[in-house]
């Protein structure tokens, strides 16, 4: 009997010891069991080079990693590299044409082979291969060559001076993939390598054990992860699908999931869910701007396909800056925030809202000005017609087709903007399109945001990191989506201005931070305050939810939200 008690005591002690150990956030790998993550937009591939979607980039960040990432504060931290190269430490050359990265020694892929400079070079070749549609090609723009100085040293040479050289291999969008696994997947063969695209071999904290397209991904801790004792979780159950409301509910009310991504829900809906007491809502502000894009070309269906919404036909009334300005100042942005965003949004007039150095002091649009808007429209020659809708002498009616993606908050905002525009005599027709189609980028669909078969559209966009060069350079002549470019391109408004193009060129050649900031503000003001081609509405935070039992989460709005999942742990009650 005594022996039995003693044995049981010993067993109990052995069970209790690791539990006490787990309370501190360190311990052996996989000590905290399983973590459940829900992304209400399901993931279709684990290869971010084949999809521009945020969900794919974030899911891939569990498995494959870049040389450096942005942390929650927006500063670069080395991941696979030993340090971030700068001019001061000699990593970036004085003439700004090369950058030299040093890999951490003894890095292993999850299959046990060594990570070398050859893998990094291969990643560049993979994305720039002839005949391949690399979704992250912008990251490698201006890169002339990538070469290995030795097994662990990579030198990137640019075509000209690059004041901001941290694009290639930095951030969740351009992680390093294994040369051995993807060697036969170059160019047009890239989408055919299903096995590699679904189960990439990586250096990240987890590896894929089972991938079901557009459904569930099962992952397990990577035995070869470089930091001992991490990740704390042995497995990840990464569920996709549903909608924002049910995802929020599953974390905040029922506690089935530990982490839910991107809760674009009205503030009263979120606070009702918070009453469930199972979790908390996190938000972080990066550079997300919910904006109205004004179409400068004519989207009328009476135009032949191929000419519709192209620069061949200017828009009948949105090409008049006074009309665009009237539409902007007629909107009461504070009400939009109160109804749709709450603490997760602020009224805003800038395309580049952050970092502080780059943000213009543009606040004119913050106060609604109906009389001012009416005066502008009358100055432009639009007088009220018999039905109250303004018409000009040529019979052009101010009737606007306003489209966005299907989401309860966006539809509420649409209704409010429609009411504002009604007051100044502008007729608004609302249209909402399923998010999968709207953001899907399918060149065959007439409903994508790039095709822009509408007068005005609303969505959110942002830039990664803390330099808006590529973001502002998008609005250059020739970068507009058009039939010849398979309707791809980032100049959604079809802006074409020689002065603005000159500023883009000047910006790329400027290296002094203060001068760059001043130029960025000028470019921002050109697009927003001076011309109202882009009408910013709300500076949006990322909003996600975590369960009360999940620790270590640091919401990052500059990179993948799962950037530090290796540090997540279970808080035991």
């Amino acid at each position: 009997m005594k022996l039995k008690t003693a044995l049981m005591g010993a067993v109990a002690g052995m069970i209790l010891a690791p539990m006490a150990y787990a309370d501190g956030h360190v311990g052996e790998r996989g000590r905290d069991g399983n973590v459940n993550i829900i992304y209400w937009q399901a993931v279709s591939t684990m290869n971010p080079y084949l999809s521009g979607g945020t969900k794919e980039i974030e899911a891939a960040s569990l498995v494959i990693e870049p040389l450096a990432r942005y942390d929650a504060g927006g500063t670069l931290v080395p991941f696979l590299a030993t340090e971030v190269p700068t001019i001061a430490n000699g990593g970036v050359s004085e003439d700004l044409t090369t950058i030299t990265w040093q890999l951490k020694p003894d890095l292993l892929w999850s299959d046990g082979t060594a990570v070398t400079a050859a893998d990094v070079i291969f990643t560049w070749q993979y994305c720039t291969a002839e005949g391949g549609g690399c979704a992250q090609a912008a990251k490698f723009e201006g890169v002339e060559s990538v070469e290995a100085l030795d097994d662990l040293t990579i030198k990137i040479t640019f075509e000209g001076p690059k004041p901001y050289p941290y694009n290639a291999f930095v951030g969740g969008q351009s992680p390093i993939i294994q040369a051995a696994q993807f060697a036969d997947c170059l160019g047009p063969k890239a989408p055919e390598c299903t096995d590699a695209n679904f189960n990439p071999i990586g250096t990240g904290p987890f590896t894929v054990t089972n991938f079901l397209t557009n459904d569930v991904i099962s992952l397990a801790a990577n035995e070869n992860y470089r930091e001992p004792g991490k990740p704390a979780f042995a497995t990840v159950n990464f569920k996709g699908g549903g909608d924002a409301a049910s995802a929020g509910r599953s974390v905040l009310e029922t506690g089935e999931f530990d982490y839910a991504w991107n809760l674009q829900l009205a503030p009263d809906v979120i606070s009702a869910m918070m009453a469930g007491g199972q979790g908390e809502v996190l938000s972080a502000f990066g550079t997300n701007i919910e904006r109205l894009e004004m179409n400068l070309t004519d989207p009328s269906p009476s135009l032949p396909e191929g000419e519709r919404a192209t620069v061949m036909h200017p828009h009948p009334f949105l090409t008049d800056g006074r009309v665009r300005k009237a539409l902007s100042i007629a909107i009461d942005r504070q009400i939009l925030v109160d109804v749709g965003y709450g603490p997760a949004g602020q009224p805003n007039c800038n395309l580049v809202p952050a970092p502080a150095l780059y943000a213009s002091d543009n606040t004119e649009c913050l106060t609604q000005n109906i009389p001012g808007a009416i005066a502008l429209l009358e100055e432009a020659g639009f007088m009220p017609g018999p039905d109250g809708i303004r018409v000009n002498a040529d019979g052009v009616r101010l009737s606007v087709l306003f489209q966005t993606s299907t989401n309860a908050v966006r539809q509420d905002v649409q209704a409010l903007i429609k009411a504002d525009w009604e007051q100044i005599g502008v007729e608004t027709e609302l249209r909402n399109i399923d998010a999968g189609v709207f953001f899907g980028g399918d060149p065959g669909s007439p409903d994508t945001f790039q095709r822009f078969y509408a007068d005005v559209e609303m969505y959110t966009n942002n830039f990664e990191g803390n330099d808006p060069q590529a973001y502002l350079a998008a609005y250059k002549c020739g970068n507009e989506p058009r039939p010849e470019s398979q309707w791809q391109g980032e100049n959604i408004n079809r802006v074409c201005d020689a002065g603005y193009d000159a500023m883009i060129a000047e910006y790329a050649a400027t290296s002094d931070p203060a001068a760059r900031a001043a130029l960025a503000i000028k470019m921002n003001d050109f697009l927003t305050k001076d011309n109202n081609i882009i009408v910013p509405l709300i500076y949006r935070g990322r909003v996600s939810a975590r369960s009360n039992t999940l620790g270590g989460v640091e919401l990052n709005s500059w990179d993948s939200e799962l950037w530090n999942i290796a540090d997540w742990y279970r808080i035991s009650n």
Partner: protein
Amino acid sequence: MTDTATQELAPLKVEKPRNQWLDVWDQFKSHKGAMAGLIFLIFITLFCAFGPLLWNVDPGKLDVRNKDVRPIYMLLFDGEAKVNWANPMGTDNLGRDIMANIMQGGRISLAVGWTAMILAVLLGTLIGVLAGYFRRLDGLLMRFTDLVLSLPLLPLLLVMMLLFRDPLRATFGPENGIFILIVVGIGITSWMQTARIVRGDVMALKEREFVLAARSIGTPPRRMITRHILPNVMSPIMVSATLGLATAIITESALSFLGLGFPSDFPTWGKILFDSVDRMTAFPERVIWPGLAISLTVLAVNYIGDGLRDALDPRIRGL
């Protein structure tokens, strides 16, 4: 014994010929569920059709200061509830009046239901009668029916949206364009059951003696169908029509619920339901009222169909 029978003949009581439809009505009246359904359907139709004349509130008018008003009966449970006699059924999160929205939404939902049903029944009857009466067309038409039966409605409507939305919008305006699209979409995907039932009945009728007799005196097929066949298949047609109305309302609601179909500021019962789901726990009335309207209308119509089937069947009517 020579006297003739002087037995007075009782005057022959000639019953006034009764209209057949009066018999149908008598039988229908005896079906309690059908009567209740009919009364409800008339009520909801009047409510939606003439309600807005009495309740003159614009369903699209936003009034953010007056948002989230609870229905007036909430006072019974909670004296502190935010209520307002100007909005007896409350307002939504943007301050739109819910009663006005339910009336407006009902107009659209019922209009879609009736029109799509009529379209489906016309198509179904036409194809069913042709297939049943003309043997040569039978194989072709029935294979075509099988083909359409295997088409999934949702992807089909998505494709139709893609192809026809812009031209219809340009011709009929945004709301009417979508209305036509949805009605046609529902109509051309729900006639198949009617067609199959009608075909079966027509084939059975075709072999009956009265049809043979009519044919022997040289009745042409056109007359044969309109005079002898169609009146005899009326009863299954009317029953499938009522069921079709219910299906059409539900399909429209499902489409709106999925966020397809009408523009977001254009209320239908399904759309009101869809918009309210996020706040279901805090404001249950916003899903209960449109939900009740949909299910009661569908239930009412089903009961009417049930009653009509009994009433139109001479065997049940006891003749």
